[in-house]
């Protein structure tokens, strides 16, 4: 099951974007190879023909050669820019995850990876994903900069502390693929490795079913059970006090969270931004960082930095994603705020 | 010895000094870039930090530095026109004196900051601040920038004193007049750096 890593594996990218990357690579190889061969041939040819003692004609060259140079350089530049455009297009694909991607949280720390699945199962240095399904990793580091690299998928993304970065892929072939940290991060950087296992749809269902008891998943994720997890996320949302302002029936004016995920948000300073995971994380921890247009400055929302755990942060973000199509029917009834108010001050009008 | 004539030496000295000032622009520019980025990101915290500084001291110090540049300009003017060594020396000493005043005032400011517990990492007591980490960054940049500036001023004062001493020699020639000119360029540059630092640091609030 382990994907072969011979030289010929160079031809075998196991992801959708990876195949395109290889295509650009081979174009570059063809272009570079031609140039190198031409230059080497010319050099050797000139050495053979013009070394001292040969009877070759050395009368000075016609001035047309300058125009020849300009022509060659122009061709070179045009080819180069074409390659740039092709590579940039593939890069734009790599940089923008599809909307229906399944999200897995990844935390890197010296010197291991921890993956959290939608059903809240966790794995260390392992990732199990279904074939043919876009998978998005939302990643952060607990200490220094790491980098998540799956060579066979041709994807890589640095993982930073206090920030989320994203990487996505769609695996095309079942198999076991190497995962490595590729940004030097200390003593055991060389040991920060793992495996990404791609399973066929059937095998993936089996793997999910074998999950620990009580596991559930966000509604909408294929092959999972929604209700239990939805309740857990809602509880976190309530316990942390978000429900006091961010529901349709709240008396406090606060930005709507239903339907906000991945939408464009207009900010106080006139700029637009996208409400992705990083935006939500930042707005929860530092509400004043990106105040929405039409709301007071400084924000009335208390800052959650230092008040919540990473796990709770993930759950809040997951909850906001789960309501992207609207609040559930019983949204106006807050369920058990249970008196947990870890806020610095009550929100006031 | 390496120059053909005095004119060549003068040209080389001028180009050399301008090139050196270009490096200084990049040098200060690097840290100022960082400062401006963080100031934009943490405006509130940096404004709070700025409030802890005393703008009237900063303004007075700016005036002192501008006066010192004026004195230096007089020294250069004297060197270029009449060349009376005594006058050059007096203007240079005045420049040095004003420069030293500037540094003493900064020392006083630093002492006040110490007593108020505003020295990052060494004596940092941010109880009254709402964003202590970010304001600590402001103070780090404040001390880093002003100390860097003060080091440049001190070096300048040192060279000014040396050149002022050299005016006592009767052979204080046109070569040395070039030196006064270049020193003037350097001193004005140090002044200009302060003109950037002062509003960024003191007038944010």
């Amino acid at each position: 099951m382990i994907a072969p890593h011979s030289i010929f594996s160079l031809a075998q990218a196991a992801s959708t974007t990876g195949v395109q990357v290889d295509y650009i690579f081979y174009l570059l190889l063809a272009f570079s190879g031609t140039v190198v061969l031409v230059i080497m041939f010319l050099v050797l040819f000139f050495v053979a023909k013009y070394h001292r003692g040969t009877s070759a004609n050395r009368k000075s060259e016609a001035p047309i050669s300058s125009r020849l140079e300009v022509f060659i350089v122009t061709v070179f530049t045009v080819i180069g820019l074409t390659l740039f455009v092709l590579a940039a297009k593939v890069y734009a694909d790599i940089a923008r995850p599809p909307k229906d991607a399944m999200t897995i949280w990844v935390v890197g720390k010296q010197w291991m990876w921890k993956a959290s699945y939608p059903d809240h199962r966790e794995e260390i240095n392992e990732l199990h994903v279904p074939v043919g399904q876009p998978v998005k990793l939302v990643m952060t580091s607990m200490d220094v900069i790491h980098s998540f690299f799956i060579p066979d998928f041709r994807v890589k993304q640095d993982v930073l502390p206090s920030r989320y970065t994203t990487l996505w892929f769609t695996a095309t072939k079942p198999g076991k693929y190497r995962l490595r940290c590729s940004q030097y991060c200390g003593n055991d950087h060389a040991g920060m490795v793992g495996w990404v296992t791609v399973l066929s749809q059937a095998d993936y269902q089996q793997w999910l079913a074998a999950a620990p008891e009580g596991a559930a998943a966000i509604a909408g994720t294929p092959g999972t059970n929604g209700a239990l997890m939805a309740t857990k996320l809602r509880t976190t949302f309530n316990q942390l006090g978000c429900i006091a302002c961010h529901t349709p029936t709240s008396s406090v004016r606060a930005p709507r969270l239903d339907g906000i995920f991945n939408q464009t948000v207009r900010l106080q300073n006139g700029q637009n931004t996208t409400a992705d995971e990083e935006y939500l994380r930042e707005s929860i921890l530092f509400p004043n960082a990106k105040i929405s247009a039409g709301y007071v400055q400084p924000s009335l929302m208390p800052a959650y930095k230092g008040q919540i755990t990473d796990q709770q942060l993930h759950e809040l973000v997951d909850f906001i994603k789960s309501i992207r199509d609207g609040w559930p029917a019983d949204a106006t009834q807050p369920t058990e705020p249970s008196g947990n108010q870890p806020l610095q001050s009550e929100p006031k009008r | 010895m390496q120059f053909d004539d005095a004119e060549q030496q003068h040209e080389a000295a001028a180009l050399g000094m301008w090139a050196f000032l270009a490096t200084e622009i990049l040098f200060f520019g690097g840290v100022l870039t960082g400062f401006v980025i963080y100031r934009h990101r943490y405006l509130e915290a940096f404004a709070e930090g700025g409030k802890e500084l005393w703008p009237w001291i900063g303004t007075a110090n700016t005036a002192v530095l501008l006066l010192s540049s004026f004195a230096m300009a007089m020294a250069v003017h004297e060197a270029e026109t009449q060349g009376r060594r005594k006058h050059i020396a007096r203007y240079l000493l005045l420049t040095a004196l004003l420069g030293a005043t500037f540094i003493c005032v900064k020392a006083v400011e630093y002492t006040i900051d110490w007593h108020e517990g505003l020295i990052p990492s060494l004596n940092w007591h941010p109880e009254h601040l709402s964003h202590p980490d970010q304001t600590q960054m402001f103070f780090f940049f404040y001390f880093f920038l002003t100390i860097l500036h003060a080091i440049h001023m001190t070096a300048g004062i040192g060279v000014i004193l040396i050149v002022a001493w050299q005016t006592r020699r009767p052979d204080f020639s046109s070569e040395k007049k070039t030196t006064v000119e270049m020193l003037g360029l350097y001193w004005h540059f140090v002044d200009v750096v302060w003109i950037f630092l002062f509003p960024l640091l003191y007038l944010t609030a």
Partner: protein
Amino acid sequence: MSENIVQPELPLQRLNYINHDWSVWSWINSRDHKRIGVMYLLTITFLFFLGSLPAILIRLELLTPAPNLVTREIYNRLFTMHGVTMVFFFLVPSIPTSLGNFLLPMMIGARDLAFPRMNLASYYLFLAGAILALVSLVNGGVDTGWTFYTPYSTTFSNSAMTPMILGIFVAGFSSIFTGLNFIVTVHTMRCPGMYWSRLPLFVWSMYATSLILVLATPVLAITLLLVAAEHWFQVGIFDPKLGGDPLLYQHLFWFYSHPAVYIMILPSMGVISELVTTFSRKHVFGYTFIAFSSIAIAVLGFLVWGHHMFVSGQSMYAGMVFSVLSFLVAVPSAIKVFNWTMTLHKGSLVLKTPLLYALGFIGLFTIGGLTGLFLAALAVDVHVHDTYFVIAHFHYIMVGGTMMAYLGGVHYWWPKITGRMYPEGWGVFSAVLVFFGFNLTFFPQFILGYMGMVRRVADYDPQFQVLNVLSTAGASILGVGFLLPLCYLLWSLRYEPIAGDNPWGATGLEWKSPSPPPELNFETPPTVDGPAYDYDTETIHQEGKKKHV
């Protein structure tokens, strides 16, 4: 000052910059650009071999997939030391401080640089910086990599950071003063008739390099100071836990370090221009293009630093801007390669050691430069960033390019600097060894990188072993190829024939002076009345028909 010498019989008994005073003090207190150049040459040669030691251990360790020669901790210090020593204490100073110092004033007909005392100060600053870095090494060394990425380097590294950072900081001022000296010299001290359009291409490349030295190095200096301050005081400039931004560090660092690679390659391109013309015995093809391409590289080189950060978390749009500019910066280099190749055309090629190094440069630099396009292409860089592909790319340019040019230049100007020839047979043999050893060492690394072997690791997956073994084999050959010149060049000082003033029949003012030159460079001040590389093509045409000259 040497008006009264009696002409002796042997050329070396003429008073020259070496023999007019043998005392140690006269050397270490010398303002003579030639003596300072020689002191630099000795120092950087020592530092080169010092920086090679960790490389030897690295390649030996990488013979096997597991860390069984050295531990991971030690390996991490080894590659850091190799990078820091080679980048900051060998490659950046190499050609400018040794060949540049020695030749620049002579090539423009001057007696010395504009500021000789500053030149001496530059040397001592460099020495001080190197000593500080050695202090760090003796204290166990640093393991951050030569790139010192934060927050690892500020929050998680050891105390050997301080002397290391300070050493590079101090050496940076050496760079700045050297660059400043060169710029002022070229502007103000050209001899009569030496217009800008008549400057040797080596001088153009030194000038372009100096622009970068002067403008980029201060940014490195201030960045290092900030890193040191963060390391000592933990104030949050680059540490995200305190509100800092690690990407700010990367931007500041690469703003210097990308132009720095052009500091490392531009001088070598200047050397190649000189070698190719002299050993083709004809004027260079496209002088103006080559001269301006040096300036273009210097300017464009400041605009592309973000291509080191495509996967760092910087925005996709920034990545696209840096990518297109990175493709464009390849164009001036391509122009140079084309022009050197066309200079060979219709020349009368003399296949001596310097030319062999130059031809090797043309091939290897072309490969290295083209693989830079792979890295500039966004989608491909996502895959190969931080892998051995990058390592292969920059070694092709730094070793296959700069080192080859450096060796070629040292051989070429050896008679001028020392008054002696070098043994030609050994020179050819070493050049060939270097070429083959180099390719065997680094070509497999391109493949390793694309297959997914990452950088800075003492262990790797077993399927990478074959290529690693090939690479180590190549490294041993390369090592011999580097040691040989050290031996035979030293040997030549005593045993090789004395060189004439112009053993190559080259143009250029430095060849109109005795070998070795007198202290003030020229016995009579030169004037120039024609363009550079003014070879007599008619004579060449006739010469070319003879088998032996």
